[in-house]
């Protein structure tokens, strides 16, 4: 085991520990919101502690990917392409979880799995754009061209992030606004009590650590893949 492997293992163990504490806080400490009466509402409300952080990590991953893409276009250093590609992959995984957990929450709350609400629609469009990013990477063989096209795509796809974030604040929507003010027409907004806030922000912190741990693991794997590819090319074109 190299020193890098050891640090990755420590970071992953720390993220795992924080996630366990988050689960304990969600089910053992967070109180039921006073405005929710039925057990169905109270139980489904607890999905929010993991649903919102999955989207937070998804957005963070796409911010990192777009920034790394921009830095790649400026410097043409492979390192930024590795970071951008790894971050998009994790972002897609987390936003997929966000879409699924949101849909599961919607069923008991809105009595439907999916509705073409502005927030859900912008979320679906953003998710599809990043699926397109992964497909684009898989479709181009030339590494330099792939990195250049992917960097441009990561920057353009990033436009979906602020649009998705602001959708519930700009337009008439049924999706609750957890942080910040909502449109006067928006429904279902709620204020967070101090304990709920503490548990919620701990979950956000635990997810952020999980993202960085997975990023370290994913970036190391990407470098390994590129080293193997480089050696294969050396054998073929010798």
């Amino acid at each position: 085991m190299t020193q890098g492997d050891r640090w990755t293992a420590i970071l992953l163990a720390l993220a795992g520990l924080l996630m366990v504490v988050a689960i304990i806080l969600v089910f053992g400490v967070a109180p039921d919101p006073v405005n929710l009466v039925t057990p169905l509402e109270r139980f489904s409300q607890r999905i929010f502690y993991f649903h919102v952080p999955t989207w937070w990590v998804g957005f963070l991953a796409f911010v990192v990917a777009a920034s790394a893409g921009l830095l790649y276009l400026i410097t043409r250093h492979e390192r930024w392409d590795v970071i951008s590609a790894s971050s998009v992959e994790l972002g897609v995984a987390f936003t997929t979880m966000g879409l699924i957990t949101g849909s599961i929450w919607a069923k008991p709350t809105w009595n439907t799995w999916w509705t073409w609400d502005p927030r859900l629609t912008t979320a679906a469009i953003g998710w599809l754009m990043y699926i397109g990013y992964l497909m684009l990477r898989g479709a181009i063989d030339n590494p330099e061209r792939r990195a250049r096209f992917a960097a441009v795509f990561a920057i353009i796809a990033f436009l979906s992030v602020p649009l998705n974030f602001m959708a519930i604040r700009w337009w008439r929507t049924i999706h609750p606004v957890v942080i910040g003010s909502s449109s006067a027409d928006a429904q279902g907004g709620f204020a967070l009590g101090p304990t709920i806030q503490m548990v919620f922000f701990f979950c956000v912190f635990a997810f952020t650590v999980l993202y960085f741990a997975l990023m370290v693991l994913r970036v190391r794997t990407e470098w390994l893949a590129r080293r193997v590819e480089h050696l294969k090319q050396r054998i073929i074109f010798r």
Partner: protein
Amino acid sequence: MTFMIAAYLVFWIVTFLLVFSIFNRQRNLRRDLEMVEQLVESQEQPDRR
């Protein structure tokens, strides 16, 4: 309660699949790396002679 359990299950299953797939890819790549390194070495040895 079923919805809550389903949502948390989805989260943990996808997270474990993600971690497992990255570890699996890394293990395969390490094996490939060892193999190609040997190939490169064996290709370069006649040159040294």
